[in-house]
């Protein structure tokens, strides 16, 4: 089966993940980071973007338990989280932990974990000092 055609910026982002790097686009003037990657700066077309690696630090905004689905990257159940990265943008990823327990507190700190060459290519874990409920 042929690889799907993707926007170039997303292809580059996915390539970065294979190298263990979560890359964000940043406005050349505003310094504002954006995600997901696009062919233009979200603030102004007069501004270009450059790419830089995210710190991988973030805050948990939302978390649900995925209990069923097709072609999922790991067996269910698992936590799927919405994270606000330290640089500002929101991102989705699996949050490591036991989904049979109460999900971690919204607002707790998380860190990205890279898994180059595997699916999913990255997940998040609770930052040191954060407790799973």
């Amino acid at each position: 089966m042929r690889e799907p055609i993707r926007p170039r910026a997303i292809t580059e982002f996915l390539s970065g993940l294979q190298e263990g790097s979560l890359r964000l686009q940043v406005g050349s003037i505003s310094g504002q980071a954006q995600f997901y990657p696009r062919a233009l700066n979200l603030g102004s077309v007069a501004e270009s973007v450059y790419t830089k690696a995210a710190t991988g630090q973030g805050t948990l905004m939302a978390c649900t338990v995925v209990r069923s689905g097709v072609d999922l990257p790991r067996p269910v159940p698992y936590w799927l989280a919405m994270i606000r990265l330290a640089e500002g943008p929101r991102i989705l990823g699996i949050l490591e932990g036991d989904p049979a327990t109460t999900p971690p507190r919204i607002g707790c700190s998380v860190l990205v974990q890279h898994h180059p060459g595997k699916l999913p290519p990255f997940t998040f874990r609770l930052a040191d000092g954060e407790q799973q409920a």
Partner: protein
Amino acid sequence: MKILSDRSIAIIGFGEVPNVKSSTAHALDLAAYAAREALASCGLDLADIDGVTTHTPLSEAGDPFWSNLLVETLGLSCHWLQSSDLGGAIAISNLSRAAAAIHAGLCETVLCLCADTPSTQYLGRQGGHRESLADPMGWAGPITGFGLLASAYAARFGWPAEALAKIAVTSRANALANPNACSAFRKPLSTEDYFASRMISDPLRLLDCVMRCDGANAVIVTTTNRARALGLKRWVHPIAYREITNPDPQQRSTDILESGFSQIGPKVFNDAGLAPSDIDVLQLYDDFTFAVLLQLEELGFCPRGQGARLIESCDHSAGGNLPLNTGGGQLSAGQCGLAGGGIGLVEAVRQLMGQAHGRQVTGASTALVSGLGVLPYAGNWGTSAALILETAHA
């Protein structure tokens, strides 16, 4: 839309076919049945229609000429034809565009037609959530997105399980009086049934979600002058409409619960010269129970975090003090794919025409219909739309 507030546009007819699970029907057939019923309801025939709005059904996704095929199949000849793809907002957004086209002189009488048979054939490929980024990371469909929003709400305000159960149970009770509701839902639902249903995407349960079915619905829109000339006794004015797509393009908001409804809600009521308390019938887009609660808050029917209190303190049946989704909504009439948004529109028109036999809201003269479309990547609803309707007599 100023062209609505002057009451120069009228909805004069409506039609709907019963929702059926796995009907084996083709969307063209259901579209024809709904169109025929809508035309008959106002005494018009095919030659009276010179404009059409529609959408490509999920069951026919990928056909770039669907709208053309539909018009030809129905034996129509139109001077204005539009197909749109705003998901659950298709029905009311198409109505607003029909009004604009009529005012622009492009056409005079528009058939706004929705039809879909996704439980018989599904050819759709949902990509609005940025699939190449979301799917490999564990996204499992729209339910995942609603589960995320729901978890954020639970963390901030507590999880309103009793209120959501009431929405599910009341919707089912309302559907029992709707002969067009999917037969699978024509049996009572109890609060115990709700809480016994399994978790799907925590904290959402199976009975928080819609079930796909096949169906079609239509309304006919023209000028108020033409409605009078036709000798009609009663029609419905669309008096205010607002929509917004991608309300936070730079993701500046840190509040994931804030949707476009918080922006358009005050505007649509201001345009109509009404307050939420003036609305007699609510038809809120209900792909999930939680969507209903959040819209009540976002549209201004109650303050943030007070949706559960509002729901639990009101009677949402046709005879209640806040009639809501009086035909059962999509939750209990079934979600006929991309035609699902039309269920609320047709039910609102039916109520305001005084033809909701067995579930008529006594004296209903105003209604609000909402629509929403897509959960984008890591965001709230992509499109939020709201329409206010008003009864008119000759």
